[in-house]
């Protein structure tokens, strides 16, 4: 089954091209560390998922590029074509001239309806090119105007046009200290709307990735390109082919479906966080060796202690002991910042994955009581190494990972809303104060639900 990627706005398009780059360079790199046959299966599965074979032999990404101004898309198209390994379809993009001015209302109520037909036509075309449609993967930021506002509108349209397809929104959270002054408004409006039409939101925070670049990758001068490449690596580590069954013979063909099934048991809980280890500068890779027990131990503690990366993990935090199921353990948990999970997915890639023991992730104390621990945890594996890392482990988690960041965004937005600052910019385009209140209410509900896990 194939995934159609919809890249929205400047951020969506810049990240999108890095994702396809990462996938391509992973496939064409010779670091598979596995048999030729394995490599070929991997290659085929990846191609089916993300690309179409064109007459020229250069694979064409299954993607639709959308932006309200032309500069980024034209840059994206030309950079892709230059690589020689892959390209975008020359017709699969839509842009306008003026941009959305960082105004969610402009993206949602003006550009959305105006360009719905043109955009959905492009999506329809891409969907038809798939033998079997596995779902939609949209990439957007929530701080700006196009990715956020138009993105929310397009997601709704996707839901209406493809009611039984999976939709996963990859959402970028802006730096806390501002990239856009009205980013918190735009974020609140985006998240509340996406929650209604999307199946799940996979989140990356700029602050976190920036820290990874600075502390783990030792970059002195970090550009957005660097940040985007780390994000692309992490996404690739999730969406490149894997075996989902223990004795898998074929690579799984329904990545989005599998993901939703394992991670989103309840529509109130759609916020997914992503962790990937190890991360290091490329020139250190050759000198490092990792063991699966070590990696798994770190990943588990990152989950429990809500650590954003593999440095600075708080090893003091432990899950509550089985005996202490008294309500007071709630506050103790909060005190120790224990991160309760609903469901987790671990993906292992590389050498000796069959020997990796993931039993520690099946510990019931990690999870809420609704699901059987066996159902709350899934593992996908492949012996094929990813992107030059001999061993790579990723965690996609439906847990309290994003509770604090979400709460921060809502708090700051509410703070600004109380003074009514900038609201006139939104009412100008038909988003009224009631709409804001509806969005705030929806998100407070989500926060409340995740808090009482």
């Amino acid at each position, binding site marked *: 089954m194939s995934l159609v990627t919809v890249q929205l706005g*400047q951020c969506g398009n*810049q990240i999108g091209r890095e994702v396809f780059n990462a996938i391509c360079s992973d496939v064409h790199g010779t670091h598979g560390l596995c048999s030729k046959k394995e490599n070929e299966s991997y290659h085929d599965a990846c191609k089916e998922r993300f690309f179409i074979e064109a007459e020229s032999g250069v694979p064409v990404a299954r993607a639709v590029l959308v932006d309200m*101004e*032309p*500069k*980024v898309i034209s*840059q994206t198209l030309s950079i892709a074509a230059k690589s020689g390994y892959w390209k975008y379809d020359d017709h699969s993009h839509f842009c306008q*001239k*003026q*941009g*959305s*001015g*960082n*105004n969610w209302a402009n993206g949602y109520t003006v550009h959305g309806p105006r360009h719905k037909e043109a955009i959905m036509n492009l999506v329809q075309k891409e969907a038809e090119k798939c033998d079997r449609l596995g779902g939609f993967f949209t990439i957007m930021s929530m701080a700006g*105007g196009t990715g956020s506002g138009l993105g929310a509108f397009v997601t709704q349209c996707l839901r209406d046009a493809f009611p039984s397809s999976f939709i996963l929104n990859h959402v970028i959270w802006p*730096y*806390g*200290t*501002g*990239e*856009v*002054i*009205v980013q918190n408004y735009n974020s609140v409006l985006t998240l509340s709307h996406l929650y209604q039409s999307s199946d799940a939101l996979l989140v990356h925070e700029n602050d976190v990735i*920036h820290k990874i*670049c*600075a502390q783990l990758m030792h*970059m*002195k*001068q*970090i*550009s*957005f*390109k660097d*940040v985007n490449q780390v994000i692309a690596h992490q996404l690739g580590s999730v969406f490149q082919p894997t075996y989902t069954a223990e004795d898998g013979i074929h690579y799984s063909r329904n990545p989005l479906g599998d993901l939703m099934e394992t991670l989103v048991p309840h529509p109130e809980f759609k916020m997914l966080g992503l962790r990937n280890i190890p991360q290091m500068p490329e020139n250190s890779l050759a000198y490092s060796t990792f063991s699966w027990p070590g990696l798994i131990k770190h990943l588990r503690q990152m989950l429990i202690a809500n650590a954003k990366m593999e440095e600075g993990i708080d090893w003091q935090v432990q899950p509550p002991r089985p005996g202490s199921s008294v309500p007071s353990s709630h506050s103790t948990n909060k005190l120790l910042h224990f991160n309760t999970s609903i469901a987790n997915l671990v993906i292992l890639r590389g050498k000796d994955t069959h020997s990796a023991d993931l039993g520690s992730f099946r510990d019931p104390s990690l999870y809420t009581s609704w699901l059987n621990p066996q159902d709350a945890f899934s593992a996908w594996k492949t012996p094929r190494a990813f992107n030059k890392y001999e061993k790579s482990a990723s965690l996609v988690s439906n847990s309290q990972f994003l509770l604090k960041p979400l709460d921060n965004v*809502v*708090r*700051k937005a*509410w*703070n*600004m809303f*109380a*003074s*009514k*600052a*900038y609201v*006139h*910019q939104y009412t100008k385009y038909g988003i009224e104060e009631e709409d804001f*209140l509806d969005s*705030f*209410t929806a998100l*407070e*509900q989500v926060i*409340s639900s995740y808090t*009482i896990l």
Partner: protein
Amino acid sequence: MTQSVVVQVGQCGNQVGCRFWDLALREHAAVNKKGIYDEALSSFFRNVDTRSAGDGPGIYKGKICSLKARALLIDMEEGVVNEILQGPLRDVFDSKQLITDVSGSGNNWAVGHKVYGCQYQENIVEKLRKTAEHCDCLQCFFVIHSMGGGTGSGLGTFVLNLLEDEFPEVYRFVTAVYPSGEDDVITSPYNSVLAMKELNEHADCVLPIENESLFDIVNKIHQMMNSGKLGSTVKPNSLVTSSAGITKAVQEKPFDAMNNIVANLLLNLTSSARFEGSLNMDLNEISMNLVPFPRLHYLVSSLTPLYTLADVNVPSRRLDQMFSDAFSRDHQLIQADPKHSLYLACALLVRGNVQVSDLRRNIERLKPSLHFVSWNQEGWKTGLCSVPPVGHSHSLLALANNTCVKPTFMELRDRFMRLYKKKAHLHHYLQVDGMEQSCFSEAVLSLSDLIEEYNELDATKGGPRADPSRLKIAV
């Protein structure tokens, strides 16, 4: 890609405008090596084949034939415009883009606004329409004028009104040059306050400029150049005050250096809309992010660096210095000190070889020393444009919506009241058809209201910051 049209009104407006076109050509020439008419050029210029008869339809792709500025030059006396048309920029302007008269406005806002406004309304609208028709997607009007005179101030604000009526969807950015205390035009306070009312009501964004600040910056540069520090040679074309002229045969006129600063401001403001970058900042984003309440649309600007030294390696310390300078008193283009007043919003547009980590590091570093309003504690709008200005490897434009504009406005009101109380020179205004005393009282009221809004915000500065209580959800 969108287009912008520059409307330059009055002597000051046209002199600044002239410098703008000169430097715009220089900037595009530096970037556009192949002589192809590209999207970036089209934002300010039309490509016209002058051989064909009549208007010469615009050519949208291919080689550059003849560039025409998307501009309207308006002045009620001919001297300045004629000089432009005889100077090195004569081919950049179409004769149909000019509106001139002979006798000037006599430093009288009422003459500029009521008399000439009425007289030339149709002509102006027609020419604006024509210019707009040549644009594929017109996004913004840049209006440049002084506040203290008669034409720029009076007719300029009249044109602002017209723009709002005829093109309500197009942004109106006004670059307004405010008179200094020792202005030689006695009635400048009247003209300025009358114009302020128009700016309050009809502009989307105003970039106030004070001659004193420009003058101080020019002096600072001269001192630096003449001090002749060993090992520090300044790249001549990197001066924020330098003109483009390859041939420096024409002697620079006295205001040229100061006007070049304003021209550079406009170039930097629009750079991210014209050129690519990793985080674009378009003009509509500036208005969206920096105007929290409709009337508070006055933005204090600062440009750094003022010059580049010739040595190539730029250690990041110097880069950080650029950020620090942007917030210092002596780099602001009005006499104000944003650091000691209250920020409502702040935008940083960086050009050239600067990455997001540099931006973040400096925001973190400078934030503690700045006061932000309680509901916008982390209110930064950032933009990264890859193309640096000519002669620089990087540069920074800071735009602040800050209560430090209040003193400028209060002084203006004081100077106004000193004249108004005595009814000095009032008769020159009242004898103009359509002018009444109420125009004056309304204008000063509008200004007072604005000052009061800033006062209210200032009162919140440093106060206790309890977050408003959140919505409670029934569990």
